[in-house]
């Protein structure tokens, strides 16, 4: 894709109405693949400016938003981790990989619990907006190497730092062997992503279930957030009887790890994991299962539909 163009549609996926698509199944007849994605982040104290976004609203130092986020690493993370461990939920960490250098203690704690690490860029204050291709490549190479060196894991998943992109992003991810992206919010099932070479899928990251979106952007209370999570799960669990669904809870330890929130969150984990037909899993495992059992069928079905359903 020529990056000078500004396409009107992403061109990354085909139209696929929920009422007319192949059936997805999960291991052991599960209806919902459920995963939790804590964003373990490092926000720089005095980050460089980007033309796409101002990192902090106030002139340096912007103490409150900086320190609020730092709370997540100092206090919130451990509380969140204990709640997840209690209910047997392994995290799929959306990692600003500079945490490997700043706070290796957190990485070690996650490794001990067999958590997955996937990329959330280097810092959450370095945006992909307007990066030239070589710069975006350098960022990806750094991320993949850092995760490998620090955790021994491959970078199978990607959530762009602060959800910032270029029109090259998905093509490059496929080229570097990333298997799934969390950056497309158009569906409750994994979907093939159209790239020129290699393979890429989207795994639902359930952005509307993100604690930042619900608690901060929409200003909901924690108890209301807990109701939203349970109601969302109930609906997908019902629909999953016909066609397997995915639900993710994307988290930020600085929000969910607050003492006044963790109790209601633990109740949600208790509620969801107490269902029979739920597969409590990770992003990597969902992607692997989908590639093995469903990817080819879905691609073939979409190709068969292409005359009727044009590109998005």
């Amino acid at each position: 894709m020529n990056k000078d163009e500004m396409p009107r549609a992403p061109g990354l996926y085909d139209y696929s109405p929920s009422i007319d698509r192949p059936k997805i199944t999960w291991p052991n007849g599960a209806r919902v693949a459920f995963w939790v994605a804590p964003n373990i982040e490092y926000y720089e104290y005095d980050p460089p400016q980007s033309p796409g976004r101002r990192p902090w609203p106030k002139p340096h130092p912007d103490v409150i938003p900086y320190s609020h986020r730092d709370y997540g690493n100092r206090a919130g993370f451990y509380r969140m981790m204990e709640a997840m461990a209690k209910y047997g939920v392994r995290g799929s960490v959306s990692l600003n990989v500079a945490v490997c250098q700043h706070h290796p203690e957190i990485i070690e704690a996650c490794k001990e619990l067999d958590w997955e690490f996937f990329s959330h860029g280097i810092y959450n204050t370095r945006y992909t907006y307007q990066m030239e291709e070589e710069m975006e490549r350098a960022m990806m190479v750094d991320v993949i190497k850092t995760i490998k060196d620090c955790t021994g894991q491959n970078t199978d998943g990607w959530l762009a730092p602060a959800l910032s992109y270029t029109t090259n992003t998905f093509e490059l991810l496929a080229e570097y062997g990333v298997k799934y992206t969390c950056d497309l919010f158009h569906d409750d099932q994994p979907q093939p992503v159209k790239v020129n070479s290699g393979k890429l899928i989207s795994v639902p990251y359930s952005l509307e279930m993100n604690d930042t979106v619900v608690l901060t952007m929409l200003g909901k209370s924690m108890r209301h957030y807990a109701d939203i999570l349970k109601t969302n799960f109930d609906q997908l669990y019902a629909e999953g009887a016909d066609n397997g669904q995915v639900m993710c809870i994307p988290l930020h330890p600085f929000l969910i790890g607050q003492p006044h929130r963790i109790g209601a969150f633990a109740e949600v984990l208790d509620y969801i994991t107490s269902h029979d037909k739920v597969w409590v899993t990770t992003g990597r495992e969902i992607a692997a299962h989908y590639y093995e059992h469903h990817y080819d069928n879905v691609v073939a079905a979409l190709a068969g539909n292409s005359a009727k359903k044009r590109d998005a």
Partner: protein
Amino acid sequence: MSLPNDYATNYPKRGHGMDHDRYAWSQLHERPAITWPNGARVALWVVTQLQWFPLDMKPGVPVPAGMARPYPDYWDYTLRDYGNRIGVYRIFKVLDKLGIRTSVAMNSALAEMYPYLVDQVNQRGYELIANGLDMGHPHYGGMDRGEEAARIKEVLETLRGMSGQAVRGWLSPIRSESKHTPDLVAAQGIDYLCDWANDDMPYGFETASGTIHNMPHAMELDDQQILINLRHTEQEYVDQLKDQFDCLYAEAEQRGGRIMAINLNPWVTGQAYRIKALEEALSYIAGRSGVWSATGSEILDAFKAS
């Protein structure tokens, strides 16, 4: 800037009635009672919006739920598109279960991109309402008249050609008009506008091509307005729909048929955690006697015949 000397007191149109000629002054409570088919008390008009928010949108006026982040904003783009893939079918399932029909207001660019949706509207016997080109192209005061006329013509040709329907209703994207919009849509054979938020019933609307009507399309009872803009809870949304219905249902006994209009955005109400709220509210309404589920055109025709 200093004010003109007569700023406070000079307005030549100061007098009885409206300060424009688009419609006549009329109070709801003074009008003759309207009768709906089969003696129904309340006509239930559900409008489902199917819209495309283009990745490169640079609208002439701000569009809520547009691309709020730098290009390419996959975040907003794909969350809106979720409604067209998943959310709309959750809504249709609820409507089917309760025996409720809907008018579907569609951007013509979305119809061209996802013709499957047009087929769904036709197969289900729903009415298609024109909702402009796409959400990146709201109409607005000061836009070029020739450009607007050409766009309206193109939108209606596309939707009429693809659906085979007459397409009698017009809803402007974000309900935003230029001063010419009513004239231009009427010139293309539109019978009713859905933009103006000033009544509970249809009323005559004057255009250069004669009198058309404005229908009481829900502005306050819009899921995006309540749940996104005002950030009310799902339960508060349910309560508002029920309260609106209770008032209209009671009024209908004294003052004639009323219209309960509900506007749905599939990317809002079609979310897995919100669909139950919609079902609760619609079950409450559909469960009462004397509720007539109808399309905008059916309601307008019954209004004119009454």
